[in-house]
Every structure is written in structure tokens, then in C-alpha cells.
């Protein structure tokens, strides 16, 4: 399964969802596929699920999607225990698991290429709908269907290592610009001011 093809399919289903990506290949690919104002492209690993959780808790009527990687989830495994108890029904997490630290350019293996099963860990942490997807047809059927479910979902999508993200243009929107675009989009669609933006 190729991550870019999954993201392409996912991007075609987006409307008013909020999407948070962590730093790594999928951030570049997602920004290439989706220019939606509801995208928040974080600049570091290990923070996307936490930020997406905060958004989901604060906006329980909005679907929030975290697009993350195996390396990034391994960096923040405590998120699983917290989510297993919080159970935000509007949060959907896709972990694109290529089994390597691809961004390092030497592609050394992550723990998931060995004995570690992230979906099993998530289940044991209390996330009831946690499963591994291994084929594109299954992603189309199960992964995409999760968009319409009213439950916390954690889908580990086993993908081949792909270097697509090195061939396409990196996002030219900087973090502050992205943040303000995202916040202004929320102000507009939620019809309420975001307090910290304030007035000059």
C-alpha cells in the first residue's frame, strides 16, 4: 500500500474536517494534496495526536483527523493511554506505518518493523476501534468508512516506504501563517472569536 494513494483518497473526502499532521513525509504529501484552511501542519514529530485531541475536546461537534507516522506515535505513546480513557468520539487517527525512519534518509527501522504492534497497543490502552489496515482496498473500505463513524478510531495503515515526499514541492506556508489561517477558518466556521488572537 502506498501512503500517497491513501492520502489522495482521503483528500477527496474532505469537507469541513480539521486535519492535523505531524512532521514527516505525510505532512509534505498532505499539503500537496489538500490546501484546505482546516489543515494544521505541525513542524515537529510526536505532537499531532495531542493537538488533535485538544481540538476534538474543544470542538466536540467537529470531526478532527490526525495524520501521523509510526516514528511519531512511538515518540508519544502516552497519548494512547490518555485517549483510551478520554474516548473523544470525533477524533480519527491514521498512522501511516512504513516501519522506518524515512525522513532520516538512511531509513533505519522503527520498532514496528520488529515486534511492536501499534494497533494492539492502542487496543490494550482502551481504544476500542484500533486496527491495522494492510491493503489499499481495505483502506478504501474500512479507513474511509471511519470518517462517518461517531467513535474514536485508530487505524494503523501499513505502507511501503515511498520517497514521493522528496519529489514533490514542500509546503511554502510557514507555521505562523498556517496557524492564523487555521484559527481564522475556525472563527469563521464556528462563528465565534478565538480569544488569544485578540486585537492590536
Amino acid at each position: 500500500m502506498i501512503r500517497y494513494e491513501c492520502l489522495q483518497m482521503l483528500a477527496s473526502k474532505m469537507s469541513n474536517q480539521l486535519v492535523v499532521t505531524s512532521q514527516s513525509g505525510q505532512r509534505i504529501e498532505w499539503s500537496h494534496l489538500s490546501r484546505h484552511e482546516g489543515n494544521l501542519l505541525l513542524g515537529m514529530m510526536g505532537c499531532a495526536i495531542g493537538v488533535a485531541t485538544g481540538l476534538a475536546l474543544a470542538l466536540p461537534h467537529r470531526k478532527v483527523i490526525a495524520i501521523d507516522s509510526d516514528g511519531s506515535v512511538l515518540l508519544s505513546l502516552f497519548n494512547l493511554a490518555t485517549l483510551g480513557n478520554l474516548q473523544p468520539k470525533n477524533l480519527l487517527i491514521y498512522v501511516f506505518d512504513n516501519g522506518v525512519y524515512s525522513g532520516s534518509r538512511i531509513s533505519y527501522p522503527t520498532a514496528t518493523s520488529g515486534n511492536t504492534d501499534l494497533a494492539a497497543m492502542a487496543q490494550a490502552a482502551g481504544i476500542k476501534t484500533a486496527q491495522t489496515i494492510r491493503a489499499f482496498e481495505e483502506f478504501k473500505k474500512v479507513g474511509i468508512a471511519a470518517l462517518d463513524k461517531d467513535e474514536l478510531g485508530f487505524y494503523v495503515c501499513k505502507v511501503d516506504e515511498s520517497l514521493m515526499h522528496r519529489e514533490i514541492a514542500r509546503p511554502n506556508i510557514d507555521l505562523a501563517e498556517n496557524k492564523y489561517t487555521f484559527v481564522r477558518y475556525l472563527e469563521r466556521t464556528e462563528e465565534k472569536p478565538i480569544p488569544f488572537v485578540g486585537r492590536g
Partner: protein
Amino acid sequence: MKDELARRLVQSLKDAGINFVTYLPETRLSQILPLIRDDPAMELIAVANESEAVTIAAGATLAGKQAAVYMENTGIYVASYSLLAVGKQLGVPLLLVVAYLGGVPDLRNSFLYATIGKHSVPVLDGLGIDHRLVEDGEKLEVKVKDAVRAANALRAPYALLFAGEFSE
């Protein structure tokens, strides 16, 4: 901490607009937790690690909440990556309500805390996070409100370090 001081601290947070609190409990300020939990105007979120206390609070802030993160000062060390990666790099205001164990004004200081606690202020300085020491209840309400205003103005985390009477 005396119950009255705990009540004033929670009321100060509320008066300053705080309506979302993530936390990992500790020993000095923990009396504030049941007060926050029982207040319908504030959402209290338990976490497993201070790092996600920061990222979850940051997400809520971007969605319109005025968030605080309550932690022990050792949590600053644990959360330093998130504080930089989300708090500083993305520029998200957060009030850090920090129990300052092991500093000179910690009334329950001991060999267990001192070696670790003495690094809190240098670490916050190293992270570029502004901070203020609060040792008693004098002008507590003003100090909390000032801290929230500073965090919003700076678009960054701001830490209040509680010791002295708060560590009784």
C-alpha cells in the same frame, strides 16, 4: 496549601478566563483539582505525561479555549520538547501552573527535590519561557490575570511558579 488559598487560586484562574485545564497531579497544589473538577465552567483533562498536557491544551487553545497546564516543575523537563515544538514554535499561549518543588522557597524542600528543582528556572530561561514566582496570596488574582494576559500577548506559554505558602 490551605484550602482558602486553593479556592482563591481556582477562582483566580476562572476570573482570568481559564476554562480548560490539563494536568498531571503532584503534591503541592493538588487541592485545586477537585475544585476545578466540580466547576462546570472549567473542563479538566487528565493526562499521562506533561508533554501531552501541553499539546492537548494547545489544541484546545487554537479552538478557542483559554487553557492552563497544571504540573509539577519536573513536568517542565518532561514537556520541554512540546513547549518548544508547539508552544514556542507554533506560538500558542498557555498558562503553566507549576508547583515549584525543590526551590529555595519550597517549604517542603528536601534532598529529594532540591537537586532537581534548582534547574527549573534556568530551564525555563533556556526555553525562552517567561515566568513569575508566586509565594503567597498577596495580589494572587492580579498575578494570575497578568500571566494570562502576558501569555496571550506573547503568543507563548507563560509559567507561574508556586512555592512558599502554596507549598505548606
